[in-house]
């Protein structure tokens, strides 16, 4: 069927003149394949296929129907080649003989390039975005047009630098499309000079701006040719160009401080670019106000010199994708967001404490950074196998395990499991910088690794110290280090499990009928996390005390130890909420028969197995299973919940612990959110307890209006 269509269309396309532009070479000639195809078609009946053994689904999916515009990326849209497009005047140089028009068009090209770059950053191929610019594809042609040339060159150099950052941070397929540069002229000679070129052009234009300002105040003019011929527009054009050029500049030097200054100036240039829109639109006669929001240039005009179809063949064998370039305004918003994210990264204190670092990364991810800023973060965190390229990983581990400073030089770091543990930590940091979807999958997988390393370390520890404790000083230190690290590894493992479950909410993987089991599992993981965190703190106090042997146990000291540490209380607040939600959801299911989802092919047990498979496989936590979930929830009733209200506990703890975090705004904000969830749920629970079972018109639903993963019950009468 379609096979015939292929041969017909192929023969229709056989007109010679166009083909001339793809010349035969020494070893090839052009031949008409129509008779061959016809013969082949006659030999086959419908549905038959000649294929090799390796013709599988992937091959079938990648097969193309030639000349089907939905599939054939080789199909010629307008021009066979860049050269043909240029011969047809698609990308003239100068762009116009009228110098005013030429400047206008140059600005349009700059704007559209920016929009293309943003589209590339947000998930399209470089070939179909930035490199749809014919001037960029043939950069040497632009040499006579200093303004265009320097801008194109610096754009290309920027793309190259960004590709290199993202490929260095490469962890998964999200980056593949981004870094795909096959067949593109990304590596030009002389790009290292692009900044000095840009500076020269910028200097010229700022002199032109000064001259025209001076001229307008009737002072004598210097012998400098104006930018273009219309004196009324000179100032506006100079300004519009200057901010565009300055946005592309880069200062000499290194360091986060300088980077922040640079970021600040880029942001202010972007704002000037945004402000130039009014002037540019007023000079362009053809713009229509209503759809300006969708335009890819400030002026609202179509840019000259772009053709995305020229490169679409480079993306073969995948079908051609329709690319929607971001609008100019969206592109600027994108770059503003990128710059703010980069600023957050640069202002980070490079805290050697792993716990604060993890907290920072998790906070950063909440602002939903895009690939480019996440790649930068990852490169900052992990360099040359060291944290920030500065702290050896064993130092990071000893600090995280609350060991005394001296431990970091201990020989134990050569132990193979300790070395492996170091790699797990590095790997974890990289994973935490990836997008939430990928991150969750990877976190689920590495849980197993963390579990295994714990078991191996514990075994090594027992082999070494199994016999009665030795008295040698060094052995004591070794033992201490092992103990601390073991506790911390467990704590860290539960932290990963916690984050894994959390991300399920962010990614909307749970449906309302599954909330009950999810909160129950969350509760089980949180209990363990709190327990290990508490233990770690206790062990470290213990160690500290033994070190300072002389100091008497002051009453104050003792009081401090018996008190539950604020971080643990913080976790307890989570625990109460998770338990409260579990029980409320269970009671709703048991008593009002809502939020159940009977399905024809399986039961709740299969859903439990699927959702928690990775945790179960790594025994996180031990002895947790579907039967234990059932056991702890089947008896949930509102009558008992009314007497013991977990949300009240959560509220109380949140209030109490606030004062301990008075200089930690993130945690304070989180506590406030938890308090709100607790308060609302407490009220809802009371209401349901009083009316619920009796009142069939009561509708209960769950929303994430106060917290991203602790739901708030909403009670309505229908």
């Amino acid at each position: 069927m379609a096979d015939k269509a292929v041969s017909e269309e192929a023969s229709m396309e056989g007109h010679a003149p166009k083909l001339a532009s793809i010349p035969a070479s020494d070893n090839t000639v052009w031949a008409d394949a129509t008779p061959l195809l016809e013969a082949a078609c006659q030999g086959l009946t419908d549905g038959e296929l000649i294929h090799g053994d390796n013709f599988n689904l992937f091959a079938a999916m990648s097969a193309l129907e030639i000349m089907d515009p939905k599939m054939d990326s080789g199909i010629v849209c307008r021009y066979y080649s860049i050269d043909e497009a240029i011969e047809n005047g698609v990308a003239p140089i100068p762009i116009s003989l009228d110098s005013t028009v030429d400047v206008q068009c140059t600005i349009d090209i700059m704007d559209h390039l920016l929009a293309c770059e943003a589209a590339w950053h947000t998930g399209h191929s470089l070939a179909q975005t930035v490199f749809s610019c014919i001037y960029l594809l043939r950069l040497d042609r632009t040499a006579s047009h200093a303004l265009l040339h320097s801008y194109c060159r610096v754009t290309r150099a920027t793309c190259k630098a960004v590709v290199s950052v993202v490929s260095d941070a490469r962890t998964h397929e999200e980056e593949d499309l981004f870094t795909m540069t096959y067949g593109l002229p990304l590596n030009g000679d002389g790009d290292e000079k692009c900044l000095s070129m840009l500076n020269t052009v910028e200097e010229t234009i700022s002199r032109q701006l000064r001259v025209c300002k001076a001229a307008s105040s009737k002072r004598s003019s210097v012998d400098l040719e104006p930018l273009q011929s219309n004196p009324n527009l000179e100032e506006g054009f100079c300004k519009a160009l200057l901010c565009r050029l300055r946005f592309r500049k880069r200062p000499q030097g290194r360091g986060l401080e300088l980077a922040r200054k640079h970021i600040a100036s880029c942001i202010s240039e972007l704002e000037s670019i945004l402000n130039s829109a009014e002037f540019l639109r007023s000079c362009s006669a053809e713009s229509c106000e209503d759809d300006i929001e969708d335009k890819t240039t400030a002026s609202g005009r179509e840019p000259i010199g772009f053709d995305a179809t020229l490169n679409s063949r480079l993306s073969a064998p995948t079908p051609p994708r329709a690319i929607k370039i971001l609008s100019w305004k969206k592109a600027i918003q994108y770059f503003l967001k990128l710059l703010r994210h980069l600023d957050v990264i640069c202002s980070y204190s490079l805290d050697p404490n792993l716990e604060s670092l993890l907290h920072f990364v998790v906070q950063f991810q909440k602002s939903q950074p895009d690939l480019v800023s996440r790649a930068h973060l990852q490169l900052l965190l992990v360099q040359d196998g060291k944290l920030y390229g500065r702290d050896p990983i064993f130092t990071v581990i000893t600090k995280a395990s609350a060991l005394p400073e001296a431990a970091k030089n201990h020989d134990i770091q050569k132990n193979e499991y300790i070395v492996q543990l170091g790699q797990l930590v590095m790997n974890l940091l990289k994973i935490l910088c990836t997008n939430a979807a990928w991150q969750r999958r990877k976190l689920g997988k590495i849980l197993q690794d963390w579990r295994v390393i714990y078991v191996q370390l514990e075994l090594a520890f027992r082999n070494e110290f199994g016999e009665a404790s030795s008295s040698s000083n060094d052995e004591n230190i070794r033992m201490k280090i092992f103990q601390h690290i073991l506790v911390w590894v467990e704590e860290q493992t539960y932290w990963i499990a916690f984050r894994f479950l959390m991300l399920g909410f962010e990614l909307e993987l749970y449906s309302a009928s599954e909330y009950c089991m999810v909160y129950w599992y969350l509760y089980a993981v949180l209990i363990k996390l709190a327990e290990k965190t508490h233990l770690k703190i206790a062990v470290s106090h213990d160690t500290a005390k033994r070190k300072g042997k002389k100091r008497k146990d002051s009453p104050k000291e003792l009081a401090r130890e018996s008190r539950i540490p604020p971080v643990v209380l913080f976790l307890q607040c989570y625990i109460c909420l998770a338990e409260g939600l579990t029980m409320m959801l269970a009671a709703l299911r048991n008593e009002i028969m809502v939020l159940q989802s009977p399905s024809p092919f399986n039961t709740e047990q299969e859903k439990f197995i699927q959702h928690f498979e990775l945790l179960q496989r790594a025994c996180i936590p031990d002895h947790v299973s579907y039967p234990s979930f059932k056991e702890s929830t089947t008896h949930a009733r509102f009558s008992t919940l009314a007497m013991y209200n977990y949300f009240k506990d959560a509220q109380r703890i949140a209030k109490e612990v606030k004062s301990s975090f008075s200089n930690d705004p993130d945690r304070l904000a989180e506590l406030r959110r938890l308090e709100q969830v607790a308060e609302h749920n407490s009220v809802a629970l009371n209401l349901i307890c009083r009316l619920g079972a009796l009142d069939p018109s009561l509708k209960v639903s769950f929303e994430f209006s106060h917290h991203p993963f602790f739901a708030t019950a909403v009670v309505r009468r229908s």
Partner: protein
Amino acid sequence: MKASSKEEEEKVEFEEGEIEYVSYGGEHHLPLIMNLVDQELSEPYSIFTYRYFVYLWPQLSFLAFHKGKCVGTVVCKMGEHRNTYRGYIAMLVVIKPYRGRGIATELVTRSIKMMMESGCEEVTLEAEVTNKGALALYGRLGFIRAKRLFHYYLNGVDAFRLKLLFPRQEVHIEASHGNNDLDST
């Protein structure tokens, strides 16, 4: 599978009993399936893709007819995947005037039953995160959202990998057909 969006069309009056469900019956059904899928799903499939499915697993593909007109179809496969024998729903479409009357549910249910009887341990598919209708439909059949696939459709939209796990019983594994490169991540 990515659905393309079009405006809602006029509903058709019909009785549930008037809909006839048939298993894939040969080459004459192929243009009907292709026509429906081309209309409703935006990803282009070559004829090889369709034939790959319906030739290897004709028993898993179904069509729904109303008074001789094809109004819905489901296309599937099954095979070994990382030590499990799993079914995969590749395409599901019901034309607009016939939606909301349980036709898709019936089509998928037939395929899933066949998969279960053939010894599959689970069934998977991908659906766009914004495809509320499909997500609700599969949710009611017991599928969970196992993973989110970032920018799965290259137009920037994410997908969910949906999974249905059958309860464990003695599993009879038949010889597997074909390869399984499509549904691996």
